């Protein structure tokens, strides 16, 4: 018996715990059974949909469809999710072929966004991008980006992979889309541009997100360039949006 096994062998379920649980189950099993019997799953969804419609009417549907937050997922596949005020995905856009491949295999609409990200990361198409040392970058545009970052950090994928999280803004997103790029990748490009103004948007298109991030880190380790110091002295306006990083 090894030391860990021995240390845990005295942790046991007490009689009190077992009896309390049995008593609880006895008291609640009929209620739980009735709840599962009463409404068939499909009927439950239909009922929820009818309630929603009655509650909000057609105006409510417009509210439901409107994204209020965005998450850019960049692994190497680049995907942007639009999220409504109910934390559900209402749009999903791929910004490279790898992303398109994933979106052709998974359905994300109306799925809670954490679950949607799990679906993206667990899809077969993601398998050859996701290794133990893979870098996942999440960039968030939202009025409550901090709570979204917190929620993403609590999720399993943040523990399984090297994860970075940033917040950005609508201006950055609009510019990114002009270059047919996700705003997550574009934010990384902007960060690199602070250190190396010779890098072009085409270079960025041809780099994986890990390569982009590694170049930024290299620049950071080797000190900032004069050019960047000048830029920062002006007002830092090349840095679109705040870049709060959260590294797991």
């Amino acid at each position: 018996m090894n030391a860990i096994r021995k240390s845990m062998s005295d942790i046991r379920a007490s009689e009190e715990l077992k009896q309390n649980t049995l008593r609880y189950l006895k008291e609640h099993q009929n209620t739980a059974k009735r709840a599962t019997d009463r409404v068939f799953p499909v009927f439950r969804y239909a009922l929820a949909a009818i309630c929603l419609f009655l509650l909000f009417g057609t105006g409510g549907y417009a509210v439901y469809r409107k994204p209020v937050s965005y998450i850019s997922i960049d692994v190497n596949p680049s995907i942007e999710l639009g999220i409504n005020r109910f934390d559900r995905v209402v749009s999903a856009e791929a910004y490279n072929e790898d992303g398109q491949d994933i979106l052709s295999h998974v359905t994300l609409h109306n799925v809670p966004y954490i679950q949607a990200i799990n679906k993206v990361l667990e899809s077969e198409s993601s398998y050859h991008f996701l290794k133990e040392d893979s870098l996942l970058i999440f960039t968030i545009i939202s009025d409550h980006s901090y709570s979204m970052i917190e929620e993403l950090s609590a999720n399993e994928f943040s523990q399984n992979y090297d994860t970075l999280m940033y917040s950005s803004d609508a201006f950055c997103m609009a510019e990114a889309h002009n270059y047919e790029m996700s705003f997550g990748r574009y934010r990384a490009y902007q960060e690199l541009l602070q250190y190396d103004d010779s890098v072009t948007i085409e270079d960025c298109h041809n780099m994986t997100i890990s390569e982009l991030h590694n170049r930024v880190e290299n620049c950071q380790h080797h000190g900032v360039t004069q050019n960047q110091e000048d830029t920062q002295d002006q007002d830092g306006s090349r840095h679109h949006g705040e870049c709060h990083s959260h590294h797991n």
Partner: protein
Amino acid sequence: MKSAEDLNRVMEAYSDLVRRICFVHLKNMHDTEDVFQNVYMKYLLHEGSFESAEHEKSWFARVTINACTDWLRYLSHRKWVPLDVIDEEKEVLDHTSRGILEIVLQLPEKYRNVIYLYYYEEYSAVEIADILGKRENTVYTWLSRAKGILRDRLGGEWA
């Protein structure tokens, strides 16, 4: 829905397993009681059948780990285990066990799971991968990293 006999049987068979998984994840006895009830309620409402006792046991391990994770998420995304769970068990733990468990409970959640399933329940990496819904290589990596941390903190003779 399962019968009262079934429920009594699995209570005797797996309550220690459920309790220990709760121990490595949760903050205190109060949380443990809630998760305990959830796990057995899931069993009560589970309509599928089990192919074998091993299948049933791994179902309990998986459902308990998921229930603990859900519970921690519910408790404002806390991903750490305070050591008061050890204080609650101080009457049954000797000094050495207490020292080992303090180190084990400081491991990240994913490492705690594999360490418990591997060393206590003696599951293989393949079986752990199945329970946790992870790839086998991921489990090997986690095990190796967790062992490395334990070796550093507990010394070479820890296992």
